[in-house]
Each structure stands twice: as structure tokens, then as C-alpha cells.
């Protein structure tokens, strides 16, 4: 009985410390030092919350760049992955369908053909973004000079490449696209 009693009292003390004081102090420090990051890097346009810079959202409009496929249809609560094996015929079929939907070129970047782990991958490889340049330019009826500016904009938004994978944040790219090339 004394063991249970002691366990209970010690558990209460340690819960107070690790279950309340610790997360609260991280929260207080986070709010003071990096308030945007701690709250999910929300992206706003004209007082409307558009989403988070870290979470992909569905984009089907040809005037936008499209993020990677999501096995969970970009759901967030909870998000989903395909969990399919390389030998699963369904995976092969899905990849073939995605390839056909993107024009069927044999050298399409793999991140456009496969679903991400989180179902919310906010990034594309530069190659996967470049592969969508012609579609976006055509949908926005850009002339040759503007299309060149669009390509330059894309290259400017590439992060990493040296010590980490080169990547482009799709939502932020689309936002800048809308601002620079309005209808």
C-alpha cells in the first residue's frame, strides 16, 4: 500500500512538472520568440486565412501550380498516406493514371507521380514545378516575355539544394504568382 501511495504522490508531482510546467514554458518561450512559427505559419491575404505555409492544399485550377498527389485527398484531420507496397498492383495503376493525366511523358519527375508521406507535403522539387510551367503560362495567357518572367520567379523561389533537397513551397509560389500575374 505504501508503494502505491508513494507512486501516486510522486506521479502527481512529476505530472505537474513534465505535463504542465514543461509544455507551458515551451509555449511561453515560443510565443515570445517565434510567434508565427509556433502558431502554424498561417498565410493571410486581405484578412482571409488562406492556409498554412507548411500544409499543402488541393489545387486543380490550371492557372496554379499543383502540389504532390495526396492519398488522403489533402484532408488534415487526419491526413493520410497510401501505405501501398511497391508490389501492390493498385500503386502501379495509380502511378500510370497520374502519368497519363499529366500528359504521359516518360520523364515526369517522380514527386508528381507518387503520394507523399504526410499527405500534406507542401513542397515540389524544382523539376516538378518546371514541368507545370507551360500549363500555367498557357492558362494565364502569358506572352513569351511574361513566361520568361514566370520561369525566373520559379527559380527564385527554390530553397535548399546544397545541404538539403532543392524544393519549392507550392502555396507561397502560387500566392506570388497571383500577385505578379493577375487576371
Amino acid at each position, binding site marked *: 500500500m505504501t508503494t502505491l501511495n508513494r507512486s501516486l504522490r510522486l506521479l502527481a508531482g512529476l505530472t505537474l512538472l513534465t505535463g504542465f510546467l514543461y509544455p507551458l514554458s*515551451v509555449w511561453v518561450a515560443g510565443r515570445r520568440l517565434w510567434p508565427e512559427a509556433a502558431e502554424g505559419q498561417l498565410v493571410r491575404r486581405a484578412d482571409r486565412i488562406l492556409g498554412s505555409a507548411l500544409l499543402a*492544399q488541393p489545387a486543380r485550377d490550371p492557372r496554379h501550380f499543383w502540389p504532390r498527389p495526396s492519398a488522403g485527398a489533402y484532408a488534415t484531420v487526419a491526413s*493520410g*498516406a497510401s501505405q501501398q507496397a511497391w508490389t501492390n498492383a493498385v500503386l502501379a495503376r495509380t502511378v500510370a493514371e497520374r502519368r497519363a493525366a499529366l500528359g504521359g511523358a516518360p520523364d515526369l519527375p517522380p514527386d508528381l507521380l507518387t503520394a*507523399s508521406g504526410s499527405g500534406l507535403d*507542401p513542397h515540389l522539387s524544382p523539376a516538378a514545378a518546371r514541368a507545370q510551367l507551360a500549363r500555367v503560362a498557357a492558362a494565364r495567357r502569358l506572352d513569351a516575355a511574361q513566361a520568361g518572367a514566370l520561369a525566373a520567379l520559379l527559380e527564385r523561389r527554390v530553397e535548399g539544394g546544397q545541404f538539403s533537397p532543392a524544393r519549392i513551397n507550392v502555396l507561397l509560389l502560387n500566392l506570388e504568382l497571383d500577385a505578379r500575374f493577375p487576371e
Partner: protein
Amino acid sequence: MTAADFLHLVTFVAALLAVTPLLGRWLADVLGGETPVGLRVLAPVERLLYRAGGVSPDEDMSWPQYAGALVAFNLLGGAVVLALQLAQGYLPLNPEGFGAVPLGVAVNTAVSFLTNTNWQAYSGEASLSYLTQMSGLGVQNFLSAATGLAVLAALARGFRRQSAAGLGCFWADLVRSTLYVLLPLSFALALVLVAQGVVQSFAPYVRATGLEGSEQVIPLGPAASQVAIKQLGTNGGGFFGLNSAHPFENPTPLSNFLQALAILALPAGCVHAFGLLTGARRHAWTLYAVMLVFFLGALGLSLWSEYATPGAATLALEGKEVRFGVTPSVLWATSTTVASNGSVNAMHSSLSPLAGGLALGNILLGEIIFGGIGSGLYGMVMMAVLAVFLAGLMVGRTPEYLGKKIESQEVRMAAVAVLLPCAVVLIGCAVSCLTAAGRAAPGNPGPHALTELLYAWGSMANNNGSAFGSLAATGGLYTWGGALAMLAGRFGVILPVLAFAGRIAAQRTVPASAGSFPTDGPLFAVLLASVILIVAGLTYFPALALGPVLEHLLLIAGRAC
């Protein structure tokens, strides 16, 4: 693989080697009763906790007392997690108004966290309140890790002491590990993670209207504080369902590198700490070398499989994130399975067949290649006892290990600790194969389905917690049966280890003689590595041949399932 990939791997291994002696010294000081200079400000908190618990840190507990306190404390902690999940609908810090978690899943999750397994039958953002996460799961992340360190300390005292009745004080080992090691390291890592973009918020979920007008609910929560300890304490249970693949849990390549390093840092430090605490530093480094060779071997083979298997050019990114890429994802998969962490940054079910099989193989070795915090080292010591015993059989004299005679009772304890999890895995997998409920769970056809079953039981019984996520794990067999497997895999090892420690503490120390089998150097390393491979191979080879190996052969033959 690119030059950046090689640089990433080299930096990782160098960083691991660099932090090992630092953390080892820190752990040895804290477990040995010294308070690190910079942390003396926390000493009043330590005294306050002892007073709150009504315990004395100087109490010297016999092994049954130590084990009794440990089991009681852990089960009570699990009961709190269970109660929180069932009552969260009536409790505060529940902005999304989640109701009670279904009983089977709640029991599974409570056991999963008290045993340091962190198998996820739940999806955090869709079912758990902020209160349940931080004061239930988060607390057990600390305390189950501290429990592992306490057992390590007790075992080291068993070797160090002679003709002694006690193994030290469980309460003091628990409190000191939490207060002086886990808490400061977690606080520092959590802050870095917040800076990188891991959320730490108590706000309700945000309702957004996307660029093209679609509605998006953005889940939030106090994630950073929980992610830090989930990695450092080899827990691995995600704040969000998709764990460290989720951008809110692991937003950048830097956060990914630091989390992967945090997975292995303390288990690696534990090996050096054991050497310092027992005085057998060369032996500890020999164990370390064996672990490192297994780790690098599994890593190399997994990378080869992921890059060279047919279809890799297209499929290697399935279940992976662009900001990490293939190589860091495979490095993580190897780290999280050799250590009994179980967090994932890529979906293991969508790894190439052999890389997925190696992740499973790492788990089935018994979580002793660095392994869980504390538990990896004491599991490895049990394996070393078997190795010494076999060497003793070969030369025909009673074996000695770190100055203690290894007699039949000691060998029995080591054999139970090594073989019990193996038995649980095979029995669980057999039940899954023989029942309709078990066979209905896998989400992929063909040999992969068998791998899913073996992975599930291997992960639970060895307290890893990662999964082939294609398996539907919310049915009764996997929630209730899995809870039993996790308990057996945790306490079925801890109790024999403590009994072993109690017996050798009572012995006199025998000085090493010319006839003693040396337990450091390459000869012992080869013997130990052979014992590890033979135990795992004899137990699991048939199942592995029918699972990942067969799947790989089908894939290179161009046969889909």
C-alpha cells in the same frame, strides 16, 4: 546518391560519435548521484519531489522492492493515461470537443505509452484533446524513458557492488533521470523545433479557406514540447497521426536532422555511461562497436535497396517527403528501428521490400542495437551474458562477466529476457495468420501482407512502435492482444534483468585471472555479433524469407500482386 547525401550521412555519424561520450558522462554522473554543475538550480525541485512523494532517495531497495516500485509506478501512470482518454470530453483544453476514445484503443494507447512502445492505434489530431496529449502521453514519454534509465542504473550497481542486498532507490533514479537529463535536453530541443516551425499552441484548430476556395481545418496543439521528448526518450508516438512526416511535426531538413540524431543520442550515451558506472569502459566500447557495425550495415543495405531495386526511379518517393528526400528518410528508418523509437518521417510500408524488411529485421534483433533508452543497453548486456556463457561451454569452466560468476540462474534470467519477446512475436503472428480478424487487417496483397503482420507483432513485443501503416490496427486482436504483447515485451525483460542484477549484486567480485575470457576486443565482438545473428536468424528466418525476401524476388521478376 548525391554528394549532399554522403555529406548528410557522414555528418550524422560524426555527430553521433561526438555526442556519445558527452551524454555518457552526463548520464553516468546523474545516475551515479552527482548533480551536474549547471543544473544545481534544480536541486530544490528534486527535494520537493521527494517530499511530495514521501520517499527517501537514500533508501536501498532489494531487487523485488525495486521491481515492485517500478511496476506499480508504471501501471499507475498507464491508468492515468487511460482515464484521461476516457474522460477527456468532460475535461478542459479540448477545443475540438473530442469525446471518449473507444476502450480497446484507449487501453492499447495507455499500455503503449507506459511501456515506451508508442504504437499508434490512435490519430492524435483526430481524437485526442490537448490535455490528454500533454499531461497523459507527454508525461509517460518522460517517465517510461526514465524507467529505462533506472533499470540501467540498477544493473550497473549490480555489477559494481559485492555482497550487497540492494540495487539503489528506484524513486531517486526516476526523479534524477527526468529532472537532470530528459527535461533540460527536451526543453532545449523543443525550442529549436519551435523556431523551425513545429507548432506549440493552445489555440483551437484554424478554419481556413484555401486559394481555390476549398475549406481546410488546420490542426494545432502543444506539439513541439511533445516531439522533443518523443525523440530523446525513444518513445516515438506522434502528436499527429503521420508522426514526423507531418510538416507540423517535422517542418525542415534541419528539424529532421536534429530529430534523427535525438533518436540515437541517449541510447548511444547509455552504452558509454554503463562503461563509466561499472568501470568496464573497454567492454562498453566493444558493445558500442558491435552496435555501430550492425547499424551501418543495415543502413548501407537499406540505401542500396531503396536506390537499386527495379522501379526505384519512380516509386522511391512514395510515402516520402520532398523536403527530406530518399537518403535522410532511409537514415531515419534505420535509426528509428535499431533504437526502439518508432517515430517515422516516411511510411515504412511504402519502402522497397528489402528496406522495409531490414527495418523489420532491426526490430527483431531485439532492440539492442543502441535500442531503447536504457533498455537497449540492458538488453545487449543480457545478450553478452549468453555470449560469455557459450564461450564458457567451449572452454569448460564457469564463465565470468565483468568480475561476476555467471551461473545457471544468471543464464536462465538472460535467456528469458532474450527469448520472451521472440516467443510473443511468433505467437502473435501465428494467431493473426490463423484467425479471420488477423488476416483481414493487412492492407496490401501478397507477401507484403505477412510482413505487415510480423512487423506489427515485432514492433509491439519489442516496444518499438513503428508500423506498416497499411495494417488496420483498431480491431480487438491488435488493440487488446497488442497491449498484452507490449506489457510482456517490456516487463518480461525488465523483471529478469532486475533479478539478474539482484543476484550478481549479492555475489563477491572475482578478480580476472589468466583463464578469464576477455570481454573486450575483436574476438568478443565477433562472438557477440554471431550470437545476436544466430538468435534472430533461428527465430525469424522462415518468416522473413516468406515476407520481404519473397516480395523482393517477385518485384525483380516483374510480378505485381
